[in-house]
């Protein structure tokens, strides 16, 4: 089997496993919705635009850490060993990244929908804000997938995940908050091209280093 076929097959396997149990998917959706609701009950209303934006990204940050942490921990060692004997490490990491991107896209659309429902705030350029959210979910997925692989090797993976991933995600988060703030204020789109460029460049770097490093990570 060549790489593309392997990746396709592994992604199908991830989706199928998820669909059979539905536990993780429902759990994380409930997590997002209840976090937004807790924030709603605590804040009631948010009048300042920067706070609205920052709160949304903080909710997304915690939801995505929770969603992606288990991408490696979930599967037993024996089953992972089995995958490693039949596929290449690159296929595994690519399929995990692609699957997590899909998961994050779904999650962020639902989160944004529910968030705008309870906290009303005029978006200057809704389509461009959506683009920022999509770029954000791709960035979260690509960075956290590799970190969850690293954290899963230590005994207390869950606790380590936050410590390892927060400093790494902050640069991306800073750019994302700026980009989405520009979209909220309805600024001209050409103002934000620099931010989009930086985000795409960081994602390319992260995915490339993941591909290079994952073969060293999984050998146990």
């Amino acid at each position, binding site marked *: 089997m060549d790489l593309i076929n392997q990746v396709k097959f592994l992604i199908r396997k991830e989706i199928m496993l998820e669909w059979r149990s539905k536990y993780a998917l429902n759990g994380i959706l409930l997590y997002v919705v209840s976090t937004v609701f807790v924030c709603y009950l605590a804040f009631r209303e948010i009048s300042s635009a920067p706070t609205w934006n920052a709160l949304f990204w903080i909710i997304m940050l915690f939801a995505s850490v929770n969603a992606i942490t288990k991408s490696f921990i979930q599967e037993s060692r024996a089953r992972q060993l089995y995958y490693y004997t039949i596929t290449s490490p690159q296929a595994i990491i690519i399929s995990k990244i692609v699957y997590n991107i899909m998961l994050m896209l779904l999650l962020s659309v639902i989160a944004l929908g529910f968030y705008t429902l309870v906290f009303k705030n005029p978006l200057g350029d809704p389509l461009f804000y959506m683009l920022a959210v999509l770029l954000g979910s791709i960035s979260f997925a690509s960075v956290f997938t590799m970190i969850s692989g690293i954290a899963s090797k230590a005994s207390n993976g869950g606790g380590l995940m936050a410590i390892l991933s927060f400093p790494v995600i902050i640069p991306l988060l800073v750019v994302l908050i700026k980009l989405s703030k520009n979209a909220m204020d309805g600024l001209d789109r050409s103002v934000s091209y620099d931010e989009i460029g930086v985000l795409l460049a960081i994602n390319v770097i992260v995915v490339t*280093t993941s591909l290079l490093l994952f073969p060293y990570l999984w050998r146990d």
Partner: protein
Amino acid sequence: MNKIWWKILAIVLVLFSIVAGFLFHVPAKPILNETIRNIHFHVPMWFSMIVMLTVSFIYSIRFLKSSNENDDLMAVESANVGIIFGVLGLVTGAVWAKFTWGEAWSNDPKQNSAAIALLVYLAYLVLRNALEEEQKRGRISAVYNIFAFPIMVVLLFILPRMTDSLHPGNGGNPGFNTKDMAPELRPVFYPAVLGWILMSTWITTIRYRIRKVENKQHENN
């Protein structure tokens, strides 16, 4: 690296930069006044940190290739020394900012980036503590080190340039590049940078050798 000449050079250059940095004539500028002398102490800290963290990155790659535990020791010790110099850079910067900007920490993008970069490397040390077995610890922490390094480069060199900053070198303020810097500062500044880089290398090699001796003692017991 066992030769003695570069250690003597390090001592001479650092001593020279301290004496000359405090005593030599400096251009009198508004706001900056005598605090301009901080350039001889603050900037070399960052140069040393970047050099040590790059060394750590290179030795992490070497460890993945060789699985030689000495490469792992070198990677962690250079990261340790890099963190120390990073903290010194933050402190010297904060003292300077107190006198020129009015506040030690004023939410400047460069200060924030530097603090986040330190968090990345502290997380690297925590990750090492969480792993027991030596080969595994070396391999997994090397993977994290290599993964985090490019993001740290973006954080320190690209993001601060995208926003306004009061920091010299940004937003029209003169920095230490060749065309901005006053000529009378250069004879002290360049030796200071070289001296502190050599000094940090020396500290790293000493710590590396201590760790190697300790490992040998463990094996013998």
